[in-house]
């Protein structure tokens, strides 16, 4: 199925959890935050959150800024 991550299309298998996705993305789960369809998904729920077709994800982290 297809989802959007940070505005880009991605294909993922049905039943993929957010935690699994983060791992495949290879990004360190510490220090990131995820918004799914404009709702923040707490880290504690990454493992139990099943992605659905058309999900809009925002995956953000801290960068330098003034």
């Amino acid at each position, binding site marked *: 199925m297809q989802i959007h991550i940070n505005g880009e299309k991605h294909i993922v298998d049905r039943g993929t959890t957010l935690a699994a996705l983060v791992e495949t*993305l290879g990004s360190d789960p510490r220090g990131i935050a995820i*918004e799914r369809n404009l709702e923040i998904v707490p880290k504690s729920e990454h493992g139990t959150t099943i992605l659905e077709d058309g999900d809009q994800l*925002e995956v953000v982290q801290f960068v330098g800024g003034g």
Partner: protein
Amino acid sequence: MEDNNAAAEGLSDDFLIVAGRSFSSRLIIGTGKYETYAQNAEAARAAGAEMVTVALRRVNLSNHDEDRLTDHVSPQDYTYLPNTAGCFTAEDAVRTLKLAREAGGWDLVKLEVLADQKTLYPDMQETLKAAEALISDGFEVMVYCSDDPVYARRLEEAGCCGIMPLGSLIGSGLGIQNPVNIRLIVEQSRVPVIVDAGVGTASDAAIAMELGCDGVLMNTAIAEAQDPIMMAKAMKNAVIAGRQAYLAGRMGKKRYADPSSPLAGLI
């Protein structure tokens, strides 16, 4: 890093207290515009900073080996102050800071809602709206604002824990444009007043502190100096100097001269 800071300069009992947190350094620095995060980290050390502002941006999924801010300027060593730079509505700012809280687990934040790309001047209507929403959601809000003393009062009444009026436009280096308003804000505020934006060189920071401000926040003045590390040291000392001058109480100004050597006993 106490020995690098005010404490070492004989101000051991003079702390900046924001939202119950106590800091011996009154200089907050941004983490943008540096050549590298390594340089950024070295500047933060040289500045004796204890708080740094940080931005929240999308993870770059195509490159995982990108250098990470947190690996150089660690949240273990510095209090992160997530900002909302780039937000032009209260809604965007609130959304951004909720993500920041989730990412870092901190509720002390720096709110800024800007009006336009050209001036980056704060949109005070949206800023107040966002401040109220964030405070009711449990955030501790330090707020970037204009030097309008009336709005500064409203923001304090809304529960902001730090008032951060601009000295001049962000990144302009034009110093403190309106010392009269800054003084009015200092006189009326019961929470810390921290000049944010506009400082261009050391004397600008000293002037802000001499007006009675509780601290200074800067980014470009250090990051765009020809030698950022040296300028970081300059700013650290300038903020301490201005603070001490404010506490010391300056001499009066005179229209004419006044000799420093005794007139008696001249040969």
